[in-house]
């Protein structure tokens, strides 16, 4: 996958954008890039990049996030340092956009500048096991809605098909066909297929461009 200055992750609500953004940031940092992550979610007050604040800090990855993220203040607020996404050319910027077209509205203000600079990757995160993106047609529809709202065309797809904690290697293998069909339907290249790190050995060699991830938010129940 190309490493452009700005990597934007958008997609259907609950498709896994936040988790991928954080994992991508760790991976890029390991490759030696200076990385900053930005949370532009204006839809969901829960499950934000703020959950990973400590881990990001430890890894030396600055987090641009609304002061109200993960708080009881349920506002669609954007972070103060918003314009660093455009102006801070120091290293890589990974941006987590809120779900669906409603989330992508936050992107609109940057679309012009990002197109002008032309050093961005706009990634559609897909999960074929989610109810409203179960096939390529539905997924393409949501893609179009997001593009219309954000005024920025997608450049690639990350297949993040999973069933949460119950995901097996077979589930990921079965999702490849869906991801390829979605790629054909949308005309976008399939950049990566994500997999929980512990399933990586079972799938290496069977799927191209695998990306091992750890879940950032652990559960006590």
């Amino acid at each position, binding site marked *: 996958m190309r490493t452009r200055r700005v990597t934007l992750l958008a997609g259907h*609500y*609950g498709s896994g954008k936040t988790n991928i953004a954080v994992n991508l940031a760790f991976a890029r940092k390991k490759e030696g890039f200076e990385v900053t992550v930005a949370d532009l979610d204006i839809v969901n*007050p*829960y*499950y934000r990049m703020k959950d990973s604040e400590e881990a990001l800090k430890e890894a030396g990855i600055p987090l641009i996030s609304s002061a109200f993220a993960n708080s*009881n203040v*349920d506002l669609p607020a954007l972070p103060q340092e918003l314009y660093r996404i455009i102006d801070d050319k120091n290293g890589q910027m990974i941006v987590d956009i809120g779900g669906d077209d409603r989330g992508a509205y936050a992107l609109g203000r940057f679309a012009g500048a990002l197109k002008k600079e032309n050093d961005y990757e706009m990634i559609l995160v897909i*999960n*074929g*096991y*989610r*109810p*409203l993106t*179960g096939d390529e047609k539905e997924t393409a529809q949501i893609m179009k809605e997001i593009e219309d709202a954000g005024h920025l065309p997608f450049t690639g797809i990350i297949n993040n*098909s*999973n*069933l*949460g*904690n*119950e995901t097996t290697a077979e*589930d990921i293998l*079965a*999702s490849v*066909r*869906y991801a390829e069909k979605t790629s054909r339907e949308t005309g976008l290249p399939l950049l990566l297929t994500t997999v929980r790190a512990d399933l990586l050995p079972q799938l290496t060699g069977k799927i191209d461009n695998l990306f091992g991830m750890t879940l950032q938010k652990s*559960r*006590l*129940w």
Partner: protein
Amino acid sequence: MKDKVLMKGNEAIAEAAIMAGCRHYFGYPITPQTEVAAYMAKRMPKIGGTFLQAESEISAVNMVIGAAAAGVRAMTSSSSPGISLKSEGLSYMAGCELPALIVNVQRGGPGLGGIQPSQSDYFQATRGGGHGDYHMLVLAPGSIQEMADMTVKGFELAETYRMPCMLLADGTMGQMMEPVVLNVDNVKTAEKPWAVTGTKCEREHNVINSLSLVPEELEKWNLKRYERYACIEENEAMAEEFMTEDADIIVVAFGIAARVSKNAVVAARKEGIKVGLIRPITLWPFPKKILANAAQQAKHFISVELSMGQMIEDVELAIRCSRPVSLCTRVGGVIPSPEEVLEAIHKVQL
């Protein structure tokens, strides 16, 4: 790909309701249940259903009354403060004997409270919430699969007994994701000869009303309703029992508190403590018999709940105060950790 889908609790409620034949959803957004409305807004137009965002919670619940009176499966959903607003309608629904599904994805209170999970609407749900002598059926799912299953079951129970049914979840259950299988074969529907569908000049008018001008008549209605409630208490109480067979200590918890408690019970068993979990699935009717039965063996009960101690009263009543019952709780949107529940188990002196 599998027939399993990865869903948020709120989405599971919405899709299961559609699967159950619900084509009339009336709502008003509030965190942490807004995904129910958002999902319905996307799906309903595609299947010829009605999604309507009303101007307030009060109109939403009254639209449910209208749709239910016409005999269709109707529902609304909200979170704690919104349910308070809907309570007048719930009382009317009980009075009119109308079946509908009401979803409460609870958040911290009182007042506007916060947007984090809570179980402090237990009294409101199980004691009625609105005015007058009435009950609602109250279902408390413990997994996202159960959120879907209980949605279907909720419509069925509501129709069987002609009364509102509340699905009582919390912010965590609404927001968390788990795989779900939606099984359309499980859906049952009931005949509704009482519905106001137009007489076509072929029958007498059906009347849906909660007003009675004759006190003796109203008394009769209430007595009849409570006969039905007794039948429900006898037949519909549900609970999951986990490691209760030889238990000296019984933890009682529902919903998210039960998930945390289960981990604590497993940890305590590893230490050799004989402890089990009873997870009420119906909060009204409360599974009294199952608890009373457990009290024959167990010496101590612990009520784990995200409230200042509401369900604990039903635990004490169910076992007729024959055993001490202690309370383990976090409130205000905080969930107790398995370690905190384990500590509550350690504190019990047998």
